[in-house]
């Protein structure tokens, strides 16, 4: 499945307050990371309902990466904890939709962690390359 020329498409939900700023920082610091991601900025990781993740994965995305503030740092106090609670539900449902667990990942990336954002994205792209294209194409 995973040929060398497979370039995955990965949707990255980043929160406005931490992770999007981190992505910005990675850019202004000219840190290199693979161009396979499409960033969708949301106000808070807590507003991304599981259906947005499942819909992305069943409509062409090969992976979904969710980035939010570190625990305790949420601008809305507990939005990221909701994202964490939903992550369990999403992981369970991946199985119901015949999707590999590697296709979804939740990571905390603070505004100052530009290099970490690049690292997380690189890891995610490598992992999804290994599992191959989404069965939903």
């Amino acid at each position, binding site marked *: 499945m995973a040929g060398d020329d497979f370039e995955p498409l990965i949707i990255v939900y980043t929160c406005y307050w931490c992770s999007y700023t981190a992505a910005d920082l990675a850019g202004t610091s000219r840190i290199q990371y693979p161009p396979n991601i499409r960033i969708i900025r949301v106000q808070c990781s807590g507003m991304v309902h599981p259906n947005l993740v499942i819909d992305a994965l069943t409509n062409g995305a090969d992976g979904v990466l969710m980035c939010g503030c570190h625990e305790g740092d949420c601008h809305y106090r507990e939005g990221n904890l909701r994202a964490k609670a*939903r992550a*369990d539900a999403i992981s*369970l449902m991946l199985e119901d939709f015949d999707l590999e667990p590697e296709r979804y990942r939740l990571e905390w990336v603070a505004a100052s962690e530009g290099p970490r954002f690049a690292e997380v994205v690189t890891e995610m792209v490598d992992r999804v390359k290994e599992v191959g294209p989404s069965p939903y194409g």
Partner: protein
Amino acid sequence: MAVRVAQEWFAICGGCEVTILDVGEPLLDVLPELEFVHMPVIMDHKLYGQTGEQTAMEIPEADVGIISGGVRNEENRELAELMRSRVNTLIAMGSCASFGGVPALANQYVLEDLYERVYRGNSTTDAGATPSGDVPALLDRVYALHEVVNVDIHLPGCPTTPDMFVAALMHLLKGTPFAVAEKSVCDTCPTIREKKAVSTLKRPLESVEGVGEPLSQARCFMEQGFLCNGPATRAGCGGMDEGVPRCIRAYMPCRGCFGPLSLSANPMVDMMGALSTIGLDPKEIPDRAATFNRFAGAGRLQPKRVRG
């Protein structure tokens, strides 16, 4: 001139037909305007002619076609296509026709496993060969009506309510458009919601707290720890004037019989989101796919193979 109505039933229990008979007095007002030309449940009109003299199935031309039940076998599919070609407006009546309903729970299994488990492998049955001649073959899964032919109006519900049926008929008689509002059961539920569960998951045989008190003082059943399909279920069971949902009125959690809010929604995904959001543990849900898609399996449940 009276409006001609043709009705057929497929994979269904007959409850939706009872709804038609259960309309009560409003039926007297509309009956003079209606002429039933085909309706197996109440009249003797045979598909192959009254003496079986025809070689092909026939449904008379009609203005309105009503089909209840999901499409389970070849005969259902043929009749659905025939009905579609004979009527101007086609109504999918009930959750089985609209979303597959309870029979579509079978979609969790591949057809061969169903045969094996329900018919051949059953210890109380002397299994014969699978009939091939006179019985229509099963399709690979249960289909909702709109997956087979174009449907103009969906009347959800298990069964759908008499007043929703009458409202749809009245709109058709007047020539005005009819649609069921896209509201969820939660939108019409009077209980108190604070977006936080106050308990871990409970079994349905435990009693809801607040029984006997006015519903507006009771805590949301899901936040009390009971699985309630309200967030992912269309409102309408409380009547066309958006009354309190019927199960909620009886202090019971919603079972989801009015199906998802839109034809493309997946109640399982919405429910898993809703319950994890308020702090219930999604890992504790027994058989999530069937529990949350109890009435909406067609096109949503993924088949798996049973071993042993």
